[in-house]
């Protein structure tokens, strides 16, 4: 066991958990209306608990155990953490610690778990303020199982067809698995659930942007675990991913807030925060394959593209993606995957085949596009089936009256702020 690498992956796991709660919960929670603040927090912490257990029961196995179903998904070898935890080896009369490279497999399990729990939670942004709690719980478990696990298997397991071989795509920290999949599913959720009661006529401004700021800042810090932790060791590559991540987030801030400044005359704090997240999303697949300088360009492009998606595309098509889960994670994720094919540099990866367009390669670029298409398809199909099924079985939305009163009081029987 390499203690330094193990330590870094442990710390990274803590950082990614911090991204979900409190990070994402504050980020999203600040943007809903006051009457729904606790529902967002509840969704985040409950999914964190539930999906961690799901990961232990079957999730990790489906994602990382040896192929079944012709490589579509992993098998049952690691069900219940079998083969993951240390076990007594009778013949050697000692405890065997299963390893993944220099780190115990249970640490790999832990780190990958944090990705599994945060991804469905990202989708909350699309259906916030109107989805039934029970339905979203079932949705998340099914989505995690049937959308996330196959995708993770393709992209990150040793035998995944997007990981190795002819179609190998670069996805250092989860652009396809995490952001495209959740972002595309979010769009579908927004469309299928329909608009919030009063959308378009009533003002629905964020009730507490200070929370959104706080969440952004914690996401930013946590993302170092997400991205640089994905190296699974401490190396020059780790440092590269860390720095590229930070510079892309920085550039994203400038890009989004700068666009606002130009287009509207005023840069906003929400814009700066949104830009940081856009930059972070966009650099996620790229950070282990591009130089930090390229990270700056990725952040600039990501900020501008997501700004455009959230302000123009959304209002054009009129869907109600409450907190822009599609606009940021969907658009940013797809752009990032593609830009990885543009900026990838063998100097960083050490692998000559991974040359991006800018250093003269084109194969990698094509593979990135294939990866995007695959992720979009599996997200669309999977989410559609799950939503239709749940809609038939238990319904998706709360009653209009409950929506009006707010989910905090009606779904959870409590209030966020009691200031008198």
């Amino acid at each position, binding site marked *: 066991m390499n203690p330094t690498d193990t330590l870094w992956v442990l710390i990274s796991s803590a950082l990614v958990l911090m991204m979900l709660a409190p990070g994402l919960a504050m980020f999203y929670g600040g943007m809903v209306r006051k009457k729904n603040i606790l529902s967002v927090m509840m969704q985040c912490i409950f999914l964190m608990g539930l999906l961690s257990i799901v990961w232990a029961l079957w999730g990790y196995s489906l994602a990382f155990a040896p192929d079944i179903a012709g490589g579509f998904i992993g098998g049952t070898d690691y069900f219940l953490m079998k083969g993951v935890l240390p076990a007594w080896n009778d013949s050697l009369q000692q405890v065997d610690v299963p390893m993944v490279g220099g780190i115990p497999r249970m640490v790999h399990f832990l780190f990958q778990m944090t990705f599994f729990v945060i991804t469905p939670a990202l989708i909350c942004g699309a259906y916030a303020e109107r989805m039934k709690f029970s339905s979203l719980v079932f949705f998340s478990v099914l989505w995690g199982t049937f959308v996330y696990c196959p995708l993770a298997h393709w992209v990150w397991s040793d035998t995944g067809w997007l990981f190795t071989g002819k179609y190998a795509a670069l996805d250092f920290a989860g652009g396809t698995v995490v952001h495209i999949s959740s972002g595309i599913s979010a769009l579908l959720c927004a469309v299928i659930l329909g608009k919030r009661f*009063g959308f378009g*006529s*009533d*003002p629905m401004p964020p009730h507490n942007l200070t929370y959104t700021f706080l969440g952004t800042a914690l996401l930013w810090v946590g993302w170092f675990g997400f991205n640089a932790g994905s190296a699974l060791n401490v190396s020059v590559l780790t440092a590269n991913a860390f720095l590229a991540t930070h510079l892309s987030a920085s550039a994203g801030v400038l890009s989004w807030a700068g666009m606002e400044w130009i287009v509207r005359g005023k840069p906003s704090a929400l814009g700066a925060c949104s830009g940081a997240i856009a930059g972070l999303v966009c650099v996620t697949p790229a950070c282990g394959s591009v130089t930090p300088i390229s990270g700056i360009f990725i952040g600039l492009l990501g900020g501008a593209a997501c700004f455009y998606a959230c302000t123009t595309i959304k209002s054009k098509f009129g869907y109600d993606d409450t907190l822009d889960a599609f606009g940021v994670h969907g658009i940013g994720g797809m752009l990032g995957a593609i830009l990885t094919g543009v900026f990838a540099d063998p100097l960083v990866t050490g692998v000559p085949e991974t040359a991006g367009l800018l250093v003269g390669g084109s194969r990698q670029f094509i593979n990135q596009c294939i990866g995007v298409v695959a992720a979009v398809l599996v997200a669309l199909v999977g989410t559609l089936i799950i939503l239709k099924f749940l809609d038939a079985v238990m319904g998706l939305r709360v009653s209009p009256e409950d929506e*009006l*009163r707010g989910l905090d*009081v*009606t779904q959870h*029987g*409590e*209030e966020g702020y009691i200031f008198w």
Partner: protein
Amino acid sequence: MKKIEAIIRHFKLEEVKDALTGIGIQGMTVAEVRGFGRQKGHKEQYRGAEYTVDFLPKSKIEVVVSDDQAQEVIDTILKTARTGQIGDGKIFVTTLADTIRIRTGEQGESAL
């Protein structure tokens, strides 16, 4: 002059405001209040403790208008603030002794 106080549902505020400006009302004042009435509240539970919350969030609009505008204002509020469900609220009308605009010192209807 009359002061018309309307206690309405929260989410009706914009609509009522727009309707009032539509009939030429130039000013109004709004406060966030909590109302107790026939509309039933809800239960909240915090670990061991259960509370019945009977006070529900409402908006209170105050519009001061000349006597002859009063009925139109009342009608407009009745029309726009109504959902037909218990809890739509009340309108209270008071007669004012005087009104003054602070900026100019104007008094009476010209102060509105």
